[in-house]
């Protein structure tokens, strides 16, 4: 369908107005909302994610595309039933308690949403209790934690301990990241995975729920 390819192409160029108009036109042409989502918006965002991963484009272009994706989604949402939304999985993310650095976490969330995950963003300064309760209540498969300071990294371990205490460890997987966090630290505290950057975080989460 030509219009779906055009939506994907305009999304890649970050043309949010165009994507909004084209998405409405596609609906007017009686295309299924779920088809427009999968073959237009998500398809376009996948190309953007891949081009970012191989350093063909840089961050602002990804984020302009994400904005265009949201513009299209806003048009589709009233037409999408629960059953139409086939997410790859559900992930609760947040910046850990005591830490207010949230740009990295926001970018990880945007990339995960673009890759088809349902993202529940708890924001910053999130306590272990809030992470675990949100995962239980939403039925999330993964908790993603971000920390930018060594003084706040220990909260990640507290979340994992709480998951164990509440019998959720294993069924809810964990992925961690942030500038001072390392793969070794992830192993040490028993996290299931580690993301070096936003693109790598998507790969890690895909591998976890794969």
């Amino acid at each position: 369908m030509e219009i779906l390819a055009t939506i994907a192409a305009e999304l890649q160029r970050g043309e949010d107005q165009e994507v909004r108009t084209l998405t409405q036109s596609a609906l007017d042409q009686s295309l299924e909302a779920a088809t427009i989502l999968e073959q237009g918006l998500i398809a376009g965002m996948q190309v953007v994610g891949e081009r970012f991963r191989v350093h063909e484009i840089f961050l602002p272009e990804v984020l302009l595309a994400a904005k265009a994706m949201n513009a299209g989604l806003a048009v589709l949402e009233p037409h999408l039933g629960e059953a139409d939304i086939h997410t790859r999985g559900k992930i609760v993310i947040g910046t850990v308690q005591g830490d207010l650095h949230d740009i990295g976490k926001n970018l990880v969330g945007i990339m995960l949403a673009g890759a088809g995950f349902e993202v529940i963003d708890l924001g910053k300064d999130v306590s272990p209790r809030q992470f675990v309760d949100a995962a239980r209540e939403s039925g999330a498969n993964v908790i993603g934690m971000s920390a930018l300071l060594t003084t706040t990294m220990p909260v990640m371990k507290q979340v994992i301990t709480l998951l164990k205490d509440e019998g959720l460890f294993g069924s809810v997987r964990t992925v961690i990241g942030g500038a001072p966090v390392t793969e070794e630290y992830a192993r040490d505290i028993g996290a299931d995975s580690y993301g070096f950057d936003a693109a790598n975080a998507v790969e890690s989460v895909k591998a976890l729920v794969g």
Partner: protein
Amino acid sequence: MTRTVDVPLSEIVPTEEALVRALGGTPDQAAGDRVRRLLGDALDELRALAEPRGIFAEVDAREFAGIYEGAGDNEDPSPLLEIFARGDSIALFAVTVGAPLSDRIAALFDAGEPALGATLDAAASEGTELAGAHLDRLVLSEAREEGTANAATRVLRYSPGYCGWNITGQRALFAALGPEEIGIRLTESCLMEPLKSISGVMVMGPAEVHEFESDYRFCSDCRTKICRSRIRALKTRDPEGDDDGDPGHDRR
């Protein structure tokens, strides 16, 4: 003596080139109209919202040794004690570009404008570094006027959280300097609010004072490796001159 300064706005606005670099891009990637507009908008917002201020206080080597020791969490060995001992003079410092920028960045993300939000975030981080560089120049030019520094004297900043100086060192630094006076607060987890703030010590002396090998245990975990270019730059340029062609190199 502790002094506070209002940093001129013109001093903290990075070039578009430096901003692109801070965002992990190359000039080619930033050539498109949309990206250029975004960069321009972010720099306009930085000019409109930044409230750059700084505070500094000279301390003697003995007083500083106690501050550096902090809660005793520093790496041992670390290159810093030797560097501090070799310096001609030492001043504690903190700078911030203010809270309104962080509020605006958060509001942009909330409003579904992540591209401008992330670009402004990078611009504000660069601006904070440039505010620090302004203090370097100020301290150096005053020392030269007083005759306590000469043409070969350089200033380099070191911060808790870098090069083996544990971030918990922020507590002793704050107790000695009082950055609350320019609106910077330290949280229990040693985070500074406003977020776009930096703190540490300015060490003045000949460029060689700052040289060290980057083979310490903690160097392998460091993502920035910025010490190398900072030390190199000291030898090739006078921070007081206008040949400071790389404002974006000095990232936290």
